[in-house]
């Protein structure tokens, strides 16, 4: 059978995506390695060719480079991480120009001849959708979902010279304050929402989180509008997707976009003074109470019980 050509795009830490590439029948796997790193490491998993970029470029230039690479090598499957807005801008441009669909949040892939059957999370993360697609397709998936099998190969490396695309001029870049929370890996999360009236009041949640040994999460308005917390705390469809043992939502109403980010949590506790908050329909334990009374009392009692 013919080889199926697959291109994986990402940094060296995205190599989990090779695991998805290996689900293709007899794949010939190439890797566009962004941000530097040891290319020979990729050879452990059957990658035969590694491309690097001679310079860091903007989205339009990367898209152009991709379009050229795809038409030169005629890839059937192109796999990318979903991680950031840089990719979210680049990939659809490249896909439209190479007449290909992009399937997002991919769970699995099966190949039958030149048809791919792809399973993914869809409908606002409310359903598992199976689709059939032929010919060229882009797949986006979190690298941690897959585990590549070892298969040592010889790797050749080639550096690409991206062409600058004029049109958008970057005038200035202002760094955002950096947090260091990796909320997506947290075991226990205390998450805060608009039920808190002032930024100082968040200390109630921080104290509770400290007793529990939990990380602090938040809903969109807290990170994006009010900026009370940095965006690494943000849980939701456009923030981070989390899957902790405990998700304790304090003063969060439970909009679908927020729920979509925490659906895979094991136990969900909701604390809200409004008995009609939609979150109560999606919880294991729901406490109807003013958070300003309940949270300090809970913290105090937990401290006694856990002897902290």
């Amino acid at each position: 059978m013919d080889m199926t050509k697959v291109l994986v795009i990402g940094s060296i830490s995205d190599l989990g995506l090779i695991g998805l590439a290996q689900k293709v029948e007899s794949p010939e796997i190439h890797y566009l390695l962004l941000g530097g790193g040891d290319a020979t490491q990729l050879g452990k998993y059957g990658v035969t060719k590694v491309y690097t970029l001679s310079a860091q470029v903007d989205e339009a230039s990367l898209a152009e480079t991709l379009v050229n690479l795809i038409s030169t090598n005629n890839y059937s499957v192109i796999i990318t991480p979903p991680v950031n807005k840089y990719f979210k801008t680049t990939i659809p441009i490249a896909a439209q120009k190479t007449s290909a669909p992009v399937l997002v949040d991919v769970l699995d892939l099966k190949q039958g001849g030149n048809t791919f059957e792809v399973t993914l999370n869809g409908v606002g993360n409310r359903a598992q959708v199976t689709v059939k697609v032929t010919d060229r397709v882009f797949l986006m998936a979190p690298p941690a979902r897959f585990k590549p099998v070892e298969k040592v190969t010889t790797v050749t490396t080639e550096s690409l010279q991206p062409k600058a695309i004029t049109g958008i001029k970057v005038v200035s870049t202002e760094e955002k304050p950096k947090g260091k929370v990796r909320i997506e890996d947290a075991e226990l999360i205390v998450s805060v929402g608009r039920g808190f009236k002032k930024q100082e009041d968040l200390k109630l949640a921080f104290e509770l989180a400290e007793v529990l040994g939990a990380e602090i999460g938040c809903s969109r308005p807290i990170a994006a509008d009010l900026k009370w917390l940095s965006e690494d705390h943000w849980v939701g469809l456009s923030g981070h997707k989390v899957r902790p043992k405990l998700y304790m939502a304090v003063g969060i109403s439970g909009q679908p976009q927020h729920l979509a980010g925490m659906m895979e949590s094991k136990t969900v506790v909701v604390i809200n003074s409004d008995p009609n908050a939609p979150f109560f329909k999606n919880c294991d334990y729901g406490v109807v109470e003013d958070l300003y009374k309940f949270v300090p009392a809970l913290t105090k009692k937990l401290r006694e019980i856990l002897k902290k």
Partner: protein
Amino acid sequence: MEILALVKLALDTGQLRVSETKVDIDSTPLKISDIDRNAVEEAVRIKEKAGGRVRVITALKYGPLTRRQQEAESLLREVLAMGADEAYLIVDNALINSDQLLTAKAIAATIRKLGNYDLIIAGEATIDGYTSQVGGPRVAAELGIPVITFVRELRVEGNKVTAKRDLEDAIQTVEAQLPVLVTVTREINVPRIPPLLQIRAAMKKPINRLGLADLGISMKSPVEVTNIVPIQVKRKGVIIKDGTVDEKVDKLIQALIQEGIITPPR
């Protein structure tokens, strides 16, 4: 100034009709995708300053068409009431369940058919698909114009656009010449709630319908949806609402111990 706003009539996933084994998309209501309201608001504000008009374009993505068309038109009246002047509704069976490639081609073809434009505004993503593909990068790629994504502040002066992009770790300020496509985030503005007078006036504004044949498109979607299975999350739904604060605290702590989340030292 000729401004186009791209709007999706999204599946209201908050009201998704789900049974044990099936997601009933056909009977789930549609709504204007939240962030597209911000797009329309921004378009109308620019018009109010610079003059010109705002035309709204949407492609109907959910069937059955017989029932959805009416629903689509009443939703479009909402954005017309916000101050848009005219709406274009692309209705075609080939677009139902189609992938983003075809949708973007249909929207781009409509834009070309409308003639000249200066600025196209869309939401950063839709609330149902949330892929951030169609309204922004794909349509821009199809039209061959630059795209500025994730914009939370936008200024248009003469022929020049200055935008602040909200990226993960930085705010990036960029400049471009018109025509350009911009996708906006929810933070860019607060969409207005139109007064009754505007709602009445919107009833008289034109909604034009187009099919793929009118646009000269005959391609089929490369993606075929074969199965949709709801992700069922069974939650216990224990509501603790009676008693004093301390009694509620005790009940919750008991539950956390039973779930094995906290373990009191002996």
